[in-house]
């Protein structure tokens, strides 16, 4: 019984710490901008707090919701999230921000359906892979149907366009298929076939090509395309080992765009230094390891697939965001789970942890 309590407590503690760091850093990185734009320095803080509270309630709900029951609504939730994703393209419902239609305005709330799709896809894959058992090794009954579903989702995400989410979804889906036993024989050719498509997608769209070029050599055009990356690197450099101190950072003032969303990790780098950054990165690593351990010890195939998919989803998102901020990957426009400002991402991440907690609990009661 002590085992169960350990995992529960570790997971919960990591999540709570990350969410708290998020709330503090959202305030630190947005206060001045918010004071100027909305005349209310607490503008983003208040909202992030509200999202965090909502997310925590839903997380507790998910932790008490028997995870096997997710199987009953897995297909439905995927379909529902696809519908929401398609609503983004309807003028009046979809909100265009900086050329991309990623938000959905419903009465009373604004949603980012791509975040919901990620969770729904993991639920669906865990359910479906469990149901098919050994059939996943077949091409026509196992592999191809998944590729159709995945292809549809990726197509819609690229239409928004949201290349970052598309890559996360593809990565998580492929990893779940491999763990479930789909043969490399099918997966490798698929990856090879998509490479030219990916190349075309990137090079065809001017802003993506420029981002890639800027990523390869930011100092080549330091004031235009390389600007974000350089400012992000400068933020880390200014932070040094100990950081400038919470709230003292200057990069967020206007050098660093999206300081409270996509580049919040750079603000952490500047204000809390190497130490702060290491703590955050280590927390994410621990979160993933905890998740994988839940999967490893779960005897139920559905629970195992689900726990693996969820930990991978959170881990991959965190990794990509961290790598972008450190100049290891081209800029993508992805949120850092638990920390970046944004309601849908925070709530979905917390619900994912809630599901993990429930699986972990059932593992505990088995032993």
């Amino acid at each position, binding site marked *: 019984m002590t085992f169960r309590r350990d995992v529960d407590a570790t997971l919960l503690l990591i999540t709570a710490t990350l969410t708290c760091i998020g709330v503090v850093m959202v305030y630190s990185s947005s206060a001045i901008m918010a004071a100027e734009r909305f005349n209310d320095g607490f503008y983003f803080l208040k909202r992030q707090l509200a999202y965090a509270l909502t997310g925590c309630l839903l997380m507790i709900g998910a932790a008490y919701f028997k995870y096997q029951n997710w199987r009953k609504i897995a297909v439905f939730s995927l379909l529902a999230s696809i519908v929401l994703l398609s609503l983004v393209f309807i003028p009046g419902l979809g909100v265009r921000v900086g050329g991309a239609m990623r938000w959905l305005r419903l009465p009373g709330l604004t949603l980012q359906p791509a975040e919901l799709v990620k969770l729904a896809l993991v639920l669906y894959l865990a359910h479906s892979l469990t149901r098919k058992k050994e059939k996943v090794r077949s091409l026509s009954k196992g592999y191809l149907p998944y590729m159709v579903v995945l292809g549809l989702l990726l197509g819609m995400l690229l239409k928004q366009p949201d290349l970052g989410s598309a890559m996360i979804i593809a990565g998580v889906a492929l990893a779940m298929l491999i763990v479930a036993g789909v043969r490399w024989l099918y997966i490798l050719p698929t990856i090879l076939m998509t490479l030219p498509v990916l190349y075309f997608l990137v090079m065809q769209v001017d802003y993506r090509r420029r981002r890639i070029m800027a990523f390869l050599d930011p100092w080549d055009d330091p004031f235009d395309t390389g*600007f974000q990356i350089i400012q992000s690197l400068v933020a*880390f450099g200014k932070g040094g080992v100990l950081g400038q101190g919470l709230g003292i950072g200057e990069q967020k003032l206007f*050098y660093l765009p999206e300081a409270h969303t996509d580049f919040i990790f750079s603000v952490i*780098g500047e204000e809390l230094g*190497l130490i702060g950054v290491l703590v955050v990165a280590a927390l994410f690593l621990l979160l993933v390891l905890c998740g994988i351990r839940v999967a490893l010890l779960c005897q139920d195939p559905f629970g195992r697939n689900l726990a693996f998919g969820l930990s991978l989803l959170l881990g991959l998102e965190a990794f990509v965001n961290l790598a972008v901020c450190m100049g290891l990957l081209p800029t993508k426009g992805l949120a850092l789970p638990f920390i970046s400002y944004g309601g849908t991402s925070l709530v979905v991440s917390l619900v994912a942890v809630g599901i993990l907690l429930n699986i972990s609990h059932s593992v505990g009661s088995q032993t």
Partner: protein
Amino acid sequence: MGLDVKWIELPAVQRRFLFYSAAATLVFLLLLLRLWYLQVIHYEELQERSVKNRTRVLSLEAPRGPIYDRNGVLLVDNRPSFQISVMRQDVENRELLFDALSGLLGIEKAELEKRWDAGRGFPIYRPVPLATDVSREVMEKIQEHSVDLPGILTEVRPIRDYLDQGSTAHLVGYLGEITEEELARKDFAEYRAGDFVGKTALEKSYEDYLRGHKGKRLVEVDVQGKLLRQLQMETSSPGNKIFLTIDRELQRATDEAFGDQSGAAVAIDVHSGEILAMASRPTFDPALFAKGIGSDEWREMIHDKRHPLQNKVIAGQYPPGSTFKMIVALAALREGVAGEKRIVDCQGDFEVGGSRYRCWKKDGHGPTDLRKALRESCDVWFYQVGLELGIDKLSQAAREFGLGGLVGYPLPGERAGVIPSQEWKRKNFNKPWYAGETVIASIGQGFVLATPLQLAVMTAALANNGTVLKPQVIQKIEDWQGNVLFDSQPEIVRRIDYDPQAWKAVRDGLIAVVNAPRGTGHAARLDDITVAGKTGTSQVVRRKSDEEEEEEVNGDIPYRFRPHALFVAYAPAEKPDIAVAVVVEHGQSGGRAAGRSPKRLFSVTWN
């Protein structure tokens, strides 16, 4: 967190999980290496870069939309002005800086300190303005000395330029610095402290149309704050163009007719309700507000007894005097109280309820019919007919013509005037109505009050056979690329029905006022077109205490007790196009003082 299970014993699925755990840990180590590289090894290099990183985001002001007259003549535009600001984070010694700057700008050191402090709430990287609209010479001197003035910036800012010397100041309104209360409001979300916004009239009501969208410039500067190069730019887009219904030539003529007298005049198109000219005197110079008005100048303006800031066309309420008689005449004809041929014998005074009411002509007009009563403005005829008509019928007729209520001026500040009735008096004074009050109301005195705009709308309705029109001031709004956003359409408030005979009788009377021998409105007569009009002289209410205070000097009435002079007119009388109402405050006699203005206006129109 050690996994105490033996690798060999694990099934394939679990081995895969272990593989992923190892992968995740590896990835983490990779990130760790990168961080070490950035924050420890390259710390100094990046640190140095951040010091050199003197990029700055400058906001590009969007030029405010220009304002034109109806023919596209520019009335209000923008011109570049030089502003001296300080970047506080770059200042090392404030005392030294202000010593040098005070001489160059000709501004006291204490004043500079005050302006620096005014920017205390600004984010540290936002320049604080020290001097606005400085001359080119001063700007050049500052730039020459820029090495000794670290942190000082010269910025170019568009400022409102009033090409019509403020003749449309009351209509257009003025700008002022945005207040904290305004900044807090949602509709001002795009503004920052230090921005100028419309404070009154058109500039305020059409703020959304007039302001453009700001752009941004990302620039690199050296230690002195000197611009090295531009890195990125997002252009601003100017505000929309507003075309007024005003005709600048008519506006100028109306203005000039006042000389140094105060009062108000307004001319409207009788077909569309468009205001062609509106003058309120004395006026003010909106340019004073454009650069930020001093507190002394402001105090002087609001304490001026002649109220330069008030738009008297819409907010000045005057007893309409004899100009009101056209309403009494029409109502009497409609109600059958008196026909055109009704004769009243005027002996110079009139008695009712034990009080005597005088005609302006002491000796009386003798036997008088409607036409003569209008032409010579005989008061006794109207006392008699008004009394027979009764206040409630008179009040109803006046209200139909737009008096006693808002006529729908499209900008704020309009006042309703007063048209009394029995019920009105009961409500406001809790007293019954007296017959004597009907008598003086019949000559537009007593409780009756009207704005010049109401009188113009009334006159236009007489000229166009009873169509009461909503006054318009905006003809058209175009965006800066010429797309039309708004195009005004005439709006009819109501149509008033009168017998054609009744219209003709009153109009003939008004033609006689200006053109016939002994008419009171000769001053407005023109040779080539026929003007119809009505004069008015309205008593200014004196309180008893006032009379005791101020004695009449040399037979002259003190200025503030002199009666107001009024004139309403339309032309050409045969087929009217324009209606005018003029009030000259304390102008003594309607015919002479107020007649000049319509005359100038009509002669400018038809020359």
